C-alpha cells in the first residue's frame, strides 16, 4: 500500500481472529521496527514476543487493574467527556473504563509484543523505542494484521515493574514502552471514525 494511504487507514484493532500469526510475519514486523532512527545507533530496544497464554493472562490482569485504577480516579471527568450521550449509555461506557473492561481483550490476541527501552544506555531510549513501535504498527497493518499500542497497564511505575517481572526483565536497565496485542483482525473500524483536528490546528508557522 502507498505510505500515506497506509498511515491513514491504520486503526487500532482490539478483536482478533482465532488464527495464529506466522513467525515470519512477526520477524518482518520487528525488522521494520529496528530501522527506526535512534541516537548514536545505540539501538536501545528489545521486543518480547509472547505466545505463552499464562504470561498473557498475567499481563492482562496487570493492565485491567491498572486501567481500573487510572480511570476510576477520573470518573467525573469521563462522565463529563461523554455528556453528549444519554445517561444510561454514558454510565455503561464509563463503567467499561473504570472497571478496566476496555483492556480485557489484551489476552485474546494470539501474540503480545512488549516493547522495552534500554533506558540506562541513552537518554533517548524511550523516544527511539516509541518510533520503533510506530514502524511495527504500520508494518503489521501492511501485512494485514491488526494491533494496538496499549500503555495503560504500564501507566504507573508499579505496574511497569510487574510487567517486567512477568517477562523476566526485572532490571532497572529496562522500561516498558508499549504492550502490543497482535493478530488477524476480526473487526474493521471505519477510517472515518478516526477523528483528528484539522492539521492547521496542530501547526504553528514561525
Amino acid at each position: 500500500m502507498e505510505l500515506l494511504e497506509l498511515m491513514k487507514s491504520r486503526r487500532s484493532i482490539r478483536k482478533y481472529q482465532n488464527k495464529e500469526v506466522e513467525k515470519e510475519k512477526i520477524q518482518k514486523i520487528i525488522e521494520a521496527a529496528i530501522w527506526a532512527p535512534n541516537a548514536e545507533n545505540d539501538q536501545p530496544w528489545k521486543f518480547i514476543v509472547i505466545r505463552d497464554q499464562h504470561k498473557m493472562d498475567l499481563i492482562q490482569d496487570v493492565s485491567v487493574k491498572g486501567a481500573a485504577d487510572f480511570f476510576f480516579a477520573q470518573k467525573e471527568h469521563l462522565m463529563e467527556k461523554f455528556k453528549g450521550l444519554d445517561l444510561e449509555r454514558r454510565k455503561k461506557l464509563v463503567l467499561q473504563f473504570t472497571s478496566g473492561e476496555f483492556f480485557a481483550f489484551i489476552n485474546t490476541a494470539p501474540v503480545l509484543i512488549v516493547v522495552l527501552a534500554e533506558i540506562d544506555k541513552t537518554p533517548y531510549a524511550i523516544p527511539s523505542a516509541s518510533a520503533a513501535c510506530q514502524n511495527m504498527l504500520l508494518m503489521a497493518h501492511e501485512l494485514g494484521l491488526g494491533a494496538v499500542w496499549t500503555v495503560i497497564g504500564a501507566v504507573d511505575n508499579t505496574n511497569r515493574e510487574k510487567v517486567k517481572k512477568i517477562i523476566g526483565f526485572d532490571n532497572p536497565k529496562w522500561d516498558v514502552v508499549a504492550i502490543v496485542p497482535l493478530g488477524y483482525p476480526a473487526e474493521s473500524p471505519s477510517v472515518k471514525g478516526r477523528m483528528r483536528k484539522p492539521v492547521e490546528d496542530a501547526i504553528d508557522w514561525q
Partner: protein
Amino acid sequence: MELFEAIKTRKSIRKFKDKPVEKEKIIKIIEAATLAPNSENKQPWKFVVVQDKDKKKEIAKISILGGIKRYTSIKDELNEKFKAMEDENRKKLLDRFVSGELFHFLLECPVQVVVLADNNIIYAVHSCSAAIQNLSLAAHALGLGSCWTMIGSINSKNEKKIRKLVGYPEDNWKIAGVLALGYPDQDPNPRKRKPVEEVIDWQ
C-alpha cells in the same frame, strides 16, 4: 513509496540543498504525523515550523552548544564505541562530535520543526515520538530529508530556552524533538543494525 522500502531507505539527512520546502509538502508531512496513535485521541502535540532565519540560528546555537557539552563529557565512551575504526578516521569523527560540528546542519537546513508534547496528557512523549516517525517517513516518501535531534532538549535548561524562543514557555510543554527538514544534498552510507533475532526474545 511502499512502507518497508521507506522504512529501510530512510536515513538521517544532515546536508540540504539551498531550496525552500513547499508549504503544501510541509502540511502533508505534518498531517502524516498527526495520524500517529495517541492515548484517548487527545492529540497531545504541536508542530512549530520555524523558517525565520534568526530563530533557526538561535535554536541551532543552543543545540550545538548542547552537543559540545554532552560529547565532551562522554568523550571516552565515544572513543570506545568507535574503536573498530582506524585512528585517523576515529579522531576525525570524535572531533565532529566534541566540537559540535555534527549539529551545524541545524544552521543550514531550510526548515526546522520543533515538536512539542503536551505533558498534561499521559504518554505524550511516546505519542509525539510515533508522530515524528510518521513525519520522517512521509518526508522521505516525498523526496525530502530530515534529521530528528534531541541534543538541544536533553538538558532541561536548554530545553526551556528553545521553548521560550518559539513561544511555549509553559511547563506542560516538553520538546520531543527538533527536526531539520529540506531537500537532501547527500546520500549517507547505509545504516547498520544488529541482526533482528538479537533484539527478539520469544516467550
